[in-house]
């Protein structure tokens, strides 16, 4: 679908599906998490009200974003935090690099931050001679495998424990063939402990930035953000402009929603508030736009900025579960990635809004009620109008339009070989009919309903 030569979702998903057992395993693992989520949310009779409340708070926040950002900046500065503004990924990376250089070090520890994935910070710093160690276990695993994360909450969900054992054997010296999760986790813990103790600079993400107090909240299950930040001399926190919430009391709504949606836990193990640097420590916040204000200006798509990155839409997505996160070829995968990515590069990500059946399950699980599947539909319209589609597809659609707009032609086409089979939806953009590869065609009946009706009810 995309006019670029890079592989698109369908192709990458096709590769993923070459190993059906693996697809089953991936699907079942994520479905199990969806079930844990269902169990957790059904324990709260007020769940739907919570979602509605969160959605409205975010809506208000987005509508008054510039005010809240300035309020946040002023309060953070008053707390002794240095605030930086980055218009795009490049500026973000340069600011972070600048801080590291200023302190004359060449290595850093980093907890999970999808924003830094979006900005390709690790690559940038590595090119500039700075070593970055990701301290989230899943992130560390994909980092060792030299892969991007495949899921925003569960970065290495695509890897089986045996594969992780092999990676640890190669990189962290565990005996060959060991895949006992307890042994592997303990190995990672020892490895990361050394990292935490020796890195002067720690970077964390931000889950929520409270305008009223100038503090930010980082949620992790492993406490790795805390270990890095507390032991560091310099703490850098990267956040997108949409992470703002107006008041501290709003946290009660979001913290209850976040992890129930993500994994079915009532709350993240660590929801750490950072308000000011401890004596002798430096604290920086980098506030990043990188296309967000453009998205904010797109009426149909601004809601996507409500996202709190819980990953529930991925876990529930029947397509994601059967195509794997890497098939979305973007830092944020799954349904939410598919509505965020085209804003960044419509041509490169033209395929993503089509990687969906529009089943709507994503919108139903979303804790901030983003109308994800409606936005997928709307992106399709935008992408086609912008011309990021193939000529063959457009030709097929025009043919279909011509046939369906005229009852005469339609019925003639039906008689001449079942119009539906010819144009819709099977053969639209393919010379060889991919329907038939793994599915039989419906058997054409002797007569269409139209013929039957004329014969049986024609004289009424």
């Amino acid at each position, binding site marked *: 679908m995309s006019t670029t030569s890079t592989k698109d979702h*369908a192709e990458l*998903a*096709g590769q993923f*599906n070459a190993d059906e057992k693996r697809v089953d395993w991936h*699907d079942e693992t994520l479905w199990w998490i969806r079930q844990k989520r*269902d169990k957790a949310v*059904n324990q709260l009779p007020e769940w*739907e009200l919570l979602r509605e409340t969160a959605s409205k708070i975010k809506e208000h926040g987005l509508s008054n974003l510039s005010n809240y950002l300035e309020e946040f900046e002023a309060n953070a500065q008053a707390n002794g935090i240095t605030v930086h503004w980055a218009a795009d990924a490049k500026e973000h990376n340069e600011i972070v690099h600048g801080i590291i250089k200023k302190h004359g070090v060449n290595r850093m520890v980093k907890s999970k931050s999808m924003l830094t994935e979006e900005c390709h910070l690790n690559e940038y710093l590595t090119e500039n001679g700075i070593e970055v160690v990701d301290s989230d276990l899943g992130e560390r695993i994909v980092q060792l495998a030299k892969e991007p994360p495949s899921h925003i909450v569960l970065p290495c969900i695509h890897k089986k424990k045996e594969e992780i054992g092999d990676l640890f054997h190669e990189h962290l010296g565990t005996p060959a063939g060991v895949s006992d999760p307890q042994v592997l986790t303990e190995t990672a813990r020892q490895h990361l402990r050394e990292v935490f103790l020796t890195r002067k600079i720690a970077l964390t993400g931000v889950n929520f930035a409270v305008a009223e107090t100038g503090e930010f909240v980082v949620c992790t299950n492993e406490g790795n953000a805390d270990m890095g930040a507390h032991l560091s001399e310099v703490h850098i926190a990267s956040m997108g402009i949409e992470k703002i919430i107006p008041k501290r009391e709003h946290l009660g709504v979001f913290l209850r929603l976040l992890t129930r949606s993500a994994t079915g836990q009532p709350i993240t193990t660590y929801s750490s508030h950072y308000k000011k640097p401890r004596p002798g420590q430096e604290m920086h916040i980098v506030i990043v736009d990188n296309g967000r204000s453009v998205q904010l200006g797109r009426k149909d798509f601004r809601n996507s900025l409500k996202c709190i990155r819980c990953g529930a839409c991925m876990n529930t997505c*029947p*397509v994601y579960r*059967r*195509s794997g996160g890497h098939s979305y070829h973007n830092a944020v995968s799954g349904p939410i990635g598919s509505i965020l990515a085209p804003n960044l590069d419509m041509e490169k990500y033209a395929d993503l809004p*089509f*990687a969906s*059946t*529009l*089943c*709507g*399950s994503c919108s139903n*699980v979303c804790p901030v009620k983003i109308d994800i599947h409606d936005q997928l539909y709307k992106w*399709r*319209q935008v*992408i*086609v*109008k912008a011309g990021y*589609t193939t000529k063959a*597809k457009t030709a097929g659609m*025009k043919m*279909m*339009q011509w*046939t*369906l*707009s*005229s*009852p005469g032609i339609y019925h003639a086409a*039906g008689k001449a070989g*079942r119009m539906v*089979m010819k144009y*819709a*939806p*099977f053969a*639209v953009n393919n010379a060889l*009919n*991919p*329907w038939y*590869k*793994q*599915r*039989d*065609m*419906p*058997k*054409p009946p002797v007569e*269409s*309903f*139209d*013929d*039957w*009706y*004329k014969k049986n009810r024609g004289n009424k």
Partner: protein
Amino acid sequence: MTVGLFIPCYIDQFYPGTAIATLQLLEKLGVTVVYPPKQTCCGQPMANSGYEHLTTGCNELFIDNFSDFDYIVSPSGSCILHIKDHLHSEGRENEAVQIRHKVYELTEFLTDILKVEQLDAAFPHKVGLHQSCHGQRGLKLSQMTELVAAPFSKPLQLLNMVKGLELIPLSRQDECCGFGGTFCVAEEAVSVKMGVDRVADHLEHGAEFITGADMSCLMHMEGILKRQGSRVKVLHIAEILNSSAQ
């Protein structure tokens, strides 16, 4: 009450039995049904592919055909959802709006407008109900497992009135079958895998028939069943509700 019967293109051409059952069922329930002969398609295949701007012809035709009826009924949740959400007309927006409010998918028309409480139907078989997403999540024909809300199901309510019918349980009550319009060919691998998994759930629980309110999903699953050489059949819910009790 006069109802305009909307038969989507692929039902007209491939599943006339579904259309005939819909017509006969409505007539049995005392409704005057008219099938406007000049109808073609709701335009959804184009719109879902990103070509909503090419659906003007379909929209105008739909208004020509259906604006005079008290209600418009169709045995396809997906097409009805498309009309409800996307039928527009530059010159006749008023009529378009009216139509958007009086189109009904068959099962919701039976439960909500006709308020059917009993049916003279029998179908002594084990049946699995496929909840098609556009009907379920779009038209709210049934409660959705993602939400914390009281359960209900309009298709199920009707199937429960059918004598002898044994409804089988499913492991995943409302997972998408992977049809998705052009998705079924553009994303062939995932589409098929979704369909295979959905069918397997029904087979594991002993279904003899898979039914639902959307023939497009059933067509996709039928394609898979046939390729597997399975004896399990798909059947639109209209044909079950219209099956005579003997």
